[in-house]
Structure formats: structure tokens, C-alpha cells
């Protein structure tokens, strides 16, 4: 009989989950959409995300129209009426091309979501492995530290850090990040969500550490590093992958919230969050400027949440990994007796 690796079984299970596959398809489509930004900007719209067209006129279906009307209302979607220029209209008084901004803004949002998820994962896996493997005071120090970060409402901690760092940027030794850099929201979001992932991983390591295969490795003379990365880490992958996917979704929501409050992405960079915040000022005259970037966030986050659920079911149908979009997940931990 042919043996199947657990990964193969998971893959087969995932392949038969049509909803999860559709969600993955949607996510890939969104990624392709934002990656095509320069193509659309150069070949179709002939403008950049920050280029202003305040006093220009364009020809829509043979008719001359202001990009921004004298009362300050931007032009609405013209679809292909102007050969692809201002497909979704202009973004406000500055008359920037909304479609181009949507594509470039999506790059920022997705990039922040991914990069922050990577940071969270690295920190959480590192801390979880250390605490779970060494136990004792290492565990005590790490766990208390995580408890303290965990006690902040996520959004307030993000805002506090965002505001403090927006004043003068960040300087740690040779590492220097200017105050307008998108690495500031990335670091903040990555940091803020760390306890939500590190705590369950620590729990899992604590349980795995008691298993015979760890004992066997130690008996063969494997050192701590070897046990942590050679024995424990491979058993954590399924948890890590699921958390990582759901984490990207939550990061994108937090980025949008922080940017909306002015503590996230700083101009001239733009993201879907800053676009909603800019559009909100014109909600009564141009509601689409608020609606469209929000729909993009909704679709992206939804696709990641659905796909993440599918992954979880495929990788471990019995596991109950839950990552919450807000402060307050609590998993009663099982401590080894």
C-alpha cells in the first residue's frame, strides 16, 4: 500500500473544499490586481498614484468634463469613457486617479499585512519555542511579558506606538526608520499581535515537549537548538500556517483602522485605510470613494478568513485554532502537571 504523508492528506482534503479554493482564487485575483498597478498606471491611465489633475479637463464619450468641478466635487466613475483614464473617477480636490490609487494602495495594504504577519510569526514562534522548551524562569519571564502586551486593547497600543513613532521615527542602534516609513505600521502591527500567536504556540510546545520523540532526541544527545528546530518546529508548521493566514487578515483590518485614525500609513504613501479616511471627508458628495476601498478590504480579508478556515480543517480537523480580530481571546491553558 502506498503511504501518504500528512501534508499530502491535507492537500487532498483542501482540494476537495470548494469554498476554500474559491476564496484562494479570490485572494490570488486581488494580488494580481494590485501587482498590475504599474501596468494600468502607465499603459491605460497614463498617470501615477500621486499625480494631481486638479484643473484638468478630460473628454468622456466626446464630452469635455472637469476632473474636479468648481465646487470641489471630483468626477465620478467614467469607466472606459475616457479610454481608461479616471476609470473610477478622481479622489477629491487634488483630482488623483482613484483606480490607480486603489491599485497602489492595495499594494501597501497587502504588503503591510504580509510583512507584519511575518514579524508576528517569527517573534511568536521564537518566544513560544523558548518558553515551552526551557520552561522555568525563561517561561515565566516570556509569559508575563506576553501577558502585559496582551492586556492592552490592541487598537490603543497600536495607536500609542503609532503616535509616539510618528513624532520622530525609530532609532535602535544602527537601525533607523523615518517617521513616514511604512515599516513603522508594519513593526507596530507585527508586535501588537505577537501574544495572540505566541501563547497558543507556547502551549503546544509545552505539550509536545513531553512526547517520546523529544525524549528520544535528547537521549541521542541532541542539544536545545536541535530539539527546538529539528524536532519541535516541524510539528508546529500546521498551526503556524493557519495562524499566518488569519493573521494577514487581521493585520489588514488593524492597518486600516490605524490609518483611518492617522496613526498608521502616513502620506504620501497611501493604503486602502488612508483612502477610506480621505474618501470619508467627501462621503455625502462622493460616497464611492469610501465604499470602494472598503469593499476591497472586505473581499481580501474575507478571502483570507475563509481560506484560513479551510486550511485549518485540512491540516488538522480537530484543532481549534482561533485568532480574533480584536483584543480578548482567551484560551484556558493546559499546563503540564
Amino acid at each position: 500500500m502506498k503511504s501518504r504523508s500528512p501534508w499530502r492528506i491535507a492537500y487532498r482534503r483542501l482540494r476537495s473544499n470548494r469554498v476554500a479554493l474559491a476564496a484562494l482564487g479570490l485572494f490570488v485575483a486581488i494580488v494580481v490586481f494590485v501587482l498590475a498597478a504599474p501596468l494600468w498606471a502607465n499603459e491605460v491611465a497614463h498617470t501615477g498614484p500621486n499625480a494631481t489633475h486638479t484643473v484638468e479637463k478630460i473628454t468622456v464619450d466626446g464630452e469635455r468634463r472637469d476632473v474636479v468641478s468648481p465646487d470641489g466635487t471630483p468626477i465620478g466613475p467614467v469607466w472606459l469613457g475616457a479610454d481608461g483614464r479616471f476609470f473610477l473617477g478622481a479622489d477629491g480636490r487634488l483630482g488623483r486617479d482613484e483606480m490607480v490609487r486603489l491599485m497602489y494602495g492595495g499594494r501597501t495594504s497587502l504588503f503591510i499585512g504580509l510583512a507584519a504577519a511575518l514579524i508576528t510569526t517569527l517573534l511568536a514562534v521564537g518566544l513560544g519555542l523558548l518558553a515551552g522548551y526551557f520552561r522555568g524562569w525563561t517561561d515565566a519571564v516570556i509569559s508575563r511579558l506576553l501577558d502585559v502586551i496582551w492586556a492592552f486593547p490592541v487598537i490603543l497600543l497600536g495607536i500609542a506606538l503609532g503616535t509616539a513613532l510618528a513624532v520622530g521615527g525609530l532609532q535602535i542602534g544602527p537601525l533607523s526608520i523615518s517617521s513616514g516609513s511604512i515599516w513603522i505600521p508594519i513593526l507596530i502591527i507585527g508586535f501588537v499581535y505577537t501574544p495572540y500567536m505566541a501563547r497558543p504556540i507556547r502551549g503546544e510546545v509545552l505539550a509536545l515537549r513531553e512526547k517520546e520523540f523529544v525524549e528520544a532526541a535528547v537521549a541521542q544527545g541532541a542539544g536545545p537548538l536541535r530539539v527546538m528546530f529539528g524536532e519541535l518546529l516541524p510539528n508546529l508548521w500546521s498551526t503556524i500556517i493557519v495562524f499566518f493566514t488569519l493573521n494577514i487578515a487581521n493585520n489588514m483590518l488593524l492597518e486600516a483602522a490605524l490609518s483611518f485614525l492617522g496613526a498608521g500609513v502616513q502620506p504620501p504613501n497611501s493604503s486602502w485605510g488612508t483612502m477610506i479616511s480621505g474618501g470619508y471627508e467627501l462621503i455625502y458628495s462622493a460616497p464611492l470613494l469610501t465604499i470602494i476601498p472598503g469593499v476591497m478590504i472586505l473581499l481580501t480579508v474575507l478571502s483570507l478568513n475563509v481560506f484560513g478556515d479551510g486550511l485549518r480543517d485540512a491540516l488538522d480537523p480537530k484543532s481549534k485554532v482561533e485568532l480574533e480580530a480584536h483584543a480578548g481571546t482567551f484560551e484556558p491553558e493546559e499546563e503540564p502537571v
Partner: protein
Amino acid sequence: MARFAVRRLAGMVLVLFAISVIVFLIFNVIPNSDPAQRIAGKNATPQLVANVTEEWGFDEPLPGQYLTTMKLIFTGQLVSYSSQLNVDEQIWEGVPATLSLCIGAAVLWMSFGILFGYLSAVKAGRLTDRALTVLALVGISMPVFWLAAILLYYLTFKVQLFPSGGYVPLTENPLDWAYHLVLPWITLAVLFVGFYSRVLRSNMLDAMNEDYVRTARAKGLGERRVRVRHVLRNSLIPIVTLFGLDFGAVVGGGAILVESIFNLGGVGQYAAESIANLDLPPIMAVTLFGAFFVVLFNTLVDIAYAYLDPRIRLGTSAQ
């Protein structure tokens, strides 16, 4: 029991102390500039900067500075540097609006979360379940402030069903109070309804395979009674935990976006306005205020658990 409670409360004080130190560090060490300069404002004279340095104790070593700042907060003397208003008073002024918003939303999200979760689990795999699952997923995938903005646009501007924001004190006019809060309540509740109904659904489905449920059925209890009295009741425990923590987080500033968009004038909106002005003292005070509520509810949940489950108060979790 009393010993456990005392231990947890002592732990709570420690965590709050650690949080206050972290908040202090965030605002006094991370920013790459002279704090006195920032407090005094952009066009401050050197004399003003020197006065501020003196008053806040910025020339002292860090632990001394920490004590000075905390003294200002806890004696109610912390002053905002954009409006010169007393920060503690401003926070207290926002508390009724914040509590009105949070309590109402909590009632909504618990009722609908439990209702939807129960229906979903009972009808697992059928159309009702699928529809509710989709709704729940959409609910947790939406930016809250975006939902608020869309509701505001369609229900107060396009169709003028609701007032476009603002807060009317309950003592002034209870009907107007509720009328102004309907949209904020719904907005804040949506995320939690989605999340709670999903958690409850999976808990109930797990519980349905438990031995005690089989026993209940074997005793000849009706299906409805088994579901409500046995399955639902046992599945609610994690929901109650979540509720304690989420409620703490929402009161402690988590409602910042909903409050700002509906212009409720609560604690969260105060924080949002302070951010816009880079006004650090109020942000610092509100962050501490928020952390206090999270830690408080966290502790209350732990104590409630210990009360309900002796294994926790005597067991290994407190090692």
C-alpha cells in the same frame, strides 16, 4: 477562594504597574525628540521649554520622571497640551457615552451571537447554517469604521431614518438616547455577533458528541431540552469568558472608531481627537484607562472561573 482572589488581584496590580511603565516608556523614550519641546508646542520660547522641563521633571533620571508623570495622572493634574484642559476630567466626561454605547452593544451582540450560533449548530450543514456562516464571516471581515460610515451614509443621509450622530444623555431623554445610539450599537455589535456565533457553533457541535449528551438523550429527554439545557449551557462557558474580556476592551477604548464616526463624545473619541493633535498626555491617560479595564475584566473572569471550577483555584494553573 479568598486566597485565590487576593492572589489574582495582587497579580492585577503588578500587571497594571508594568503597563504604566510601558506606556511611560512609549511616550517618553521612543519619540526621537525632546519631550519638553513637544509638550511646549511648536512655537515655544526657550523659557517655556525650560519651565515645562522643570514642571514635568524631564531633567530628572527616568525613574523620577516616571513617578512625576504618574503623580500627575493619579492626582488628576495631568493637563492636555493642545487644549490645556484637565485630562482626567475629560475622560470622566466621556464615560457615560462610552458606557451607554458599550452596554447596549453588548446586549445586542450576546443575544444575537447566541441566537445565531445556536441556530447554526442545530441546523448544521443546512441552508440556515450556511447563510449564517456567510453573514458571520462577512461580519468579522469588515473594517468597523467603514461599516459605520456606510450606515451613516445610507440610513441618515440617503434615507433619513436615524440622527446622524451625537449623544443625548439618558437622564435627559431616554427615547432620544436610544434613538441616537441604535446605529452605533449595531455597528459595534456586528463584529462580535459574527465571532461569537462561530465560536458557539463549533463548541456546540463538539459538545453534541459528548457522553453527557448521550446520557441525557438516553434518559428520554426531548431533543429541544437536550439542546438547550445540556448542549447550549455547557457551550456557553467559553462565550462568557470571551465576553468578559471583550467588554473590558471595548469600554477601555476599543470603541474608539465607532465613537468617533458617530460623534458620541466618549472616551474613545477623546483619544482619537488627541491623536489628531499629537497630544500625548491624553493618549497616555486613555491607554492606561483602557488597559485598566482589560486587566480588571480579565481578573474578574479568572475569579469567576475559580468560583465555578475548584480545579482552577487549587490546581496547577497558578504555579
